[in-house]
Structure formats: C-alpha cells, structure tokens
C-alpha cells in the first residue's frame, strides 16, 4: 500500500524491537550462542593439511569494495592469517579493489604480528592488487594458484563469473577449497568444485562468528527471531486454510 496498513506497522515495530534489543544486549556483553557453520569448522583442518604438504594458502576477498561484506571476509581472514602464522605458513591475498588493499594489508600485518612473526613474509609478494576487471582478475588469480601450487584456497565475499575460473583452477591444483559467498548465482559453480560451500546468510553469520562485532551478531539474532515469527505465521496460515477450506481469514487480515 502507499501507506502502511495496521498489520505492516505491527510487523515493523516487532522486527525493529527484536533487532535493537538484541544489539543492545550483545553490546552489554551478553554471551550470544551462534551455531557453528559446518563449512567453517574445517578451516583449521584445511590449514593443517596445507602445512603438512608445505603448500601455500590463498585467501580471496572477492569483488567487494568498502562494505559490510568486506568486513565479514576480513574477520575470517584475520583468523586464517593468525592460524597460518602459528604454523609459519605464507597467506597470499589477491585483491580487486584499491580501498580493500589498504584494509587487507592492515589485517594481514596484525595477524602475523600477533604471532610474533612480523618479518617472516614480505607484504609485496603476498598481497597483490590484480585488477578490477572481472576477466583479468579471474585469469590472474587462476595463473597464480597454478604457478604457486596452492594447498588451501579460501574464497570469501561476492563473486561474478570469475568464481568459475578460481574454483576450477583450485580444483585442478588439488587444493582444499572452502567457498563462502552471499551471491546466490555463483553458488552452483562453487558447490560442484569446492569441498565445502557456505552461502546466503551463512556468510554474514560467518563474519559475526569470527569477529564477534556486537552490532552484527545482535542483528543476526534479531533477524532469526523475526524469521521465526514469519515461519509460525506461514504454518498457522496453511493449517487455517486447510481447516476452513475456502475462507482465508489470515490472508484477509494481513492484506487489510
């Protein structure tokens, strides 16, 4: 409607209160349970395997510029760099956006500094700005994977058609691949060539799971409660319609 009807106003107040209260609660330090994402539990095994075979690790940040998606990917990258630094393994990070290069460099250095291994690897040959043209980016990274015989390949963030080139190159090089992207269209290509694929909203959950940012975690939990309300509405509506065969009162109520 041009203006909110009564049911819509109730929904707006309900969902906003869920999200805002959960954000305030997590800001006050209330421990919030987030179920672990199955694809991310195996990150440690992937790094361990690559360390055993002494093959480098690559972390792709996708095509995001400064945005929520980039910060989620950087959170996971921080975790991976710290794990790799402990096993003194290099982490290559190809980049598609100039602004993302600056932020990634910061996270990369912090990771190695936290494990006391600052000077072990040179920033120039680990972090490289490839190009913001999709086909050039895909070809460049595919070549890099094959040349350096990457052992574990992580692909986080949003991707276009170049997702196919990365996934296929990694699969060819026999790398252990984990993909985590909110872009729904590239998931089929990741699904068939990666060992684990995490998609849709699980990408934001991954970001929240790793960097524990109260705003992101709180709003995720708030969204869950809102979705639960909608789920119950769907179940109730279908049951009501099955009982009163043709009188769809709940639909009439919602479409006042």
């Amino acid at each position, binding site marked *: 409607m041009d203006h909110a009807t009564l049911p819509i106003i109730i929904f707006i107040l309900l969902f906003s209160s869920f999200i805002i209260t959960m954000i305030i609660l997590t800001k006050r330090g209330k421990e919030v349970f987030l179920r672990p994402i199955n694809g991310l539990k195996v990150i440690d095994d992937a790094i361990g395997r690559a360390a055993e075979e002494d093959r480098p690790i690559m972390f792709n940040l996708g095509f995001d510029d400064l945005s929520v998606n980039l910060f989620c990917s950087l959170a996971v990258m921080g975790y991976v760099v710290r794990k790799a630094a402990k096993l003194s393994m290099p982490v290559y990070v190809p980049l598609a956006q100039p602004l993302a290069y600056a932020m990634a460099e910061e996270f990369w250095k912090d990771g190695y500094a936290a494990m006391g291994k600052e000077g072990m690897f040179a920033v120039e040959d680990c972090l490289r700005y490839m190009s913001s043209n999709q086909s050039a980016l895909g070809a460049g990274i595919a070549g890099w994977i094959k040349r350096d015989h990457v052992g574990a390949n992580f692909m986080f963030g949003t991707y276009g058609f170049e997702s196919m080139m990365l996934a296929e190159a990694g699969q060819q090089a026999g790398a252990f691949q984990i993909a985590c992207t909110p872009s729904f269209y590239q998931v089929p290509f990741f699904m068939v060539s990666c060992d684990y694929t995490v998609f849709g909203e699980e990408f934001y959950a991954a970001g929240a799971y790793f960097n524990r940012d109260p705003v992101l975690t709180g709003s*995720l939990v708030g969204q869950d409660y809102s979705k639960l309300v909608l789920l119950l509405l*769907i*179940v109730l509506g*279908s049951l009501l319609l099955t009982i009163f065969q043709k009188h769809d009162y709940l639909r009439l109520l919602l479409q006042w």
Partner: protein
Amino acid sequence: MQKTSKIFWLLIAALVLILAAWGEVKAMHSPAVTARIADLELPSHFIYRLQTWVAALSCIAVYSFLFKENPFYRFFEHALLGCATGYSCAVVMRQNLYSQWLVPIKKSLMNVMAGSYTREDIATVALIFAGVIGLLWYFQYSKKYFWVSRIAMCISLGAGAGLAFKDTFNQLIPQITGTFKNLCPSEYAMPGAPFIDRFYAGCENAIFVIGTVSVLMYFFFAFGNKNAIVKGSSKIGRWYLMIALGAFFGNTFMSRLSALIERVHFLMAEWLLMSQM
C-alpha cells in the same frame, strides 16, 4: 608442437579471409543487405560494410583473449570503455541535467520573475539546491574536505534506508500470504474436480509449504542446534536448495549460450552472409 599450432592458426585465418571476401561479393547485390541499410538509415553500402567489419574484428579481438591476452584485445577493450563511458555521460548531460533539471528551472524562474507563479514553480526553483548538494560529490578529490563529499552519500543512504521498510514489507506480505496453501483441498474448495486432481493439488501445496518452512529453518543461526526438528528440517532444506541451485545453474547456461549464439548469428549472417539474415 609450437610450430604446428602456428601453422594451424594461419590456415584458419586464411580460410576466414577467403570466406569474408566471398561474403563481400555476395553482399554487393543481396536484398537483405539493402533492407538492413534502410533499417539502420545508413548513408551508403560502404559504411555499412565497414561497420560490419569493425564489429566482426572487435568480436574476434574479444574471443582472442580466451587464448592469450594480446594488444589487439587491449585496443578494443579501451575503445569499448571509452565509448561506454562517453555515451552514458552524454545522455546524463543532455537528457537528465539539461532537460530534466535546467529547463524546468529556467521556465519556472521566468514565471517567478514575471510574478505569476504557482506552488510548483517555487518547488522547481528550489531544485537548484539539489545541484549544490550534487556538487558536493566532487569534494572526495580533496584530502581536507573529504567528509563533505560524504554528505551527498548520507542523504542518498538515509533516503534508501527510510524507503527500505516500504519496499521490504510491500514485497514481504504477499509472499507470506502466498504461502498459505490448502494442504488437502476438499470438494468444497475445488468444486467439480475429481479426487485424483485434488490429491495432486494437495501434494503440490504440501511440497511447497514444507520447502519454504525447511529452507527458512536452514538459515536459523541463533537457536535450534540441539532441537531435533530444526536439525532434521534444515537437512531437508538443504535438498530443496540443491534443486533451486540446479535450476539457477541451468538457467545461467541458457543466458550465456543465447548471447554466444546471437554473436555467431551476427558473424555468419551479416559478416560472412553464409546464413540467412
């Protein structure tokens, strides 16, 4: 191996050139070409053939990138970038800024000067303020006043956030009420339908509702990890998602193939005139 592939490519190039020359001869007197020239309102046959040749070369340049990045491709890529950027900026200059902003402001300014103006005229004159805000975008090139450029972004972001509620709930409510499905339609719900049709309709509705509910549960993060129902249904949800992803993959192929076929049709029909226009 290197030498043979070089010869192989030279042979291919020679064959293509012969076909192209033969195509030119055919183009001289083919009615389809004259019709095409009339459609595109081109002044002469030569310009049409030159245009077709340049278009064909640009396609070959793009496909040559598949094998190796080469200067031929890079030339046409920069030409494409120049044309695309130039065309959209020209359209913005003439059709948006000039005739949707300057012209109405000039007209209503004339009315205001002449004294006889309405409420709309004042509102249009006030749009000059929009131009001032628009110019703030260009402060991003100055280090000191970088934050000023963020004002224009904030106004757009604020408006986007404010309107997101309307866009979201206007889409969401029909989606929710659309999922209220009759799981076992009776004679009363579907008058005159035999039992078997009603049974199929009931199954279809049940599959639909179970699908939506189980995929919704799959995307729960905050609770339900130990609850058996949520664990079971999110497994079912994952099967539904597999099928949806399969449909996405199938349709992605359809689009890419039709783009390639359109290009091959252009090369074969308009350039080499080997297939019917």
